[in-house]
């Protein structure tokens, strides 16, 4: 039994799932579900379809090169069964998975870095421009204390002010 990867989305195809298409030149195309199979029949390029692993790796959304990747390979030479080897392999699989997941999380964190600061800045600008949706301009003109003070402060302080206005 072998756990194959889907041709289109690169997810694992477990036994009993999916479809295998064998072309006349004996190339086998494996699909995890009909979604991938239909996309293949439509001749879509997986590198351009956003939710596939091929797209994500190509556009740097998921980490590309890592030493944990070289452990999982397609091994085309059978190994003589050795109980110790099997036991150690199972233990190693668990550990490698844990490390790989940790590294992927770190990659995602690095990718999302600086997003919060950008969002805060944009929110501040939006609030300043759209304050008339929150309070009527006449009210703001009468009561000066309600307007947003136009002073440049550090990001954390601005966040607090925004929260105060929104409440």
């Amino acid at each position, binding site marked *: 039994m072998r756990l194959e*990867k889907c041709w289109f989305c*690169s*997810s694992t195809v477990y036994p009993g799932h999916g479809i295998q298409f064998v*072309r006349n030149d004996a190339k086998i195309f494996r699909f995890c579900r009909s979604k991938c199979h239909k996309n293949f029949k439509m001749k879509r*390029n*997986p590198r351009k379809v956003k939710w596939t*692993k091929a797209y994500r790796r190509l556009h740097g959304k998921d980490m590309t090169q890592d030493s944990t990747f070289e452990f999982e390979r397609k091994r*085309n030479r059978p190994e003589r069964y050795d109980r110790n080897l099997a036991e150690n392999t199972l233990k190693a699989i668990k550990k490698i998975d844990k490390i*790989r997941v940790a590294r992927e999380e770190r990659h995602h964190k690095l990718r999302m870095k600086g997003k919060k600061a950008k969002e805060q800045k944009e929110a501040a600008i939006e609030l300043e421009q759209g304050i008339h949706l929150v309070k009527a301009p006449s009210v703001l003109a009468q009561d000066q204390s309600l307007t947003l003070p136009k002073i440049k402060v550090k990001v954390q302080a601005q966040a607090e002010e925004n929260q105060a206005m929104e409440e």
Partner: protein
Amino acid sequence: MVKILIRWNIFYCVSVFLTENLCLRDDAVYDELQRSDSAKNPLPFDEDLPGMGQYYCLHCDRYFAHESVRDEHFKTKRHKKRVKEMMGPKPHTQLDADLAAGMGMPDNGPKLMPV
């Protein structure tokens, strides 16, 4: 014994007429292009195809009725786009899918025979 042979033949015949098998896909065309740089075989005569199957555009996998028609096709935008695509990187393969899934290069063991 004969019944089994007939059934096998029917399965094979059906697979020939599957629409998925009738036209060449991107990666098949790409492989053909890489290969046919060395050998240009004369195309086989086929009555059913337009122009007896003689005037063929490899990039678009299309047969034309006459040489002039084929040359006209070569000037079209669609054909030029295909040519540009085929000049680019190799199309997506199962190996690409495996690598994208987070596997390493396949391990075929030590070389058993000198190539």
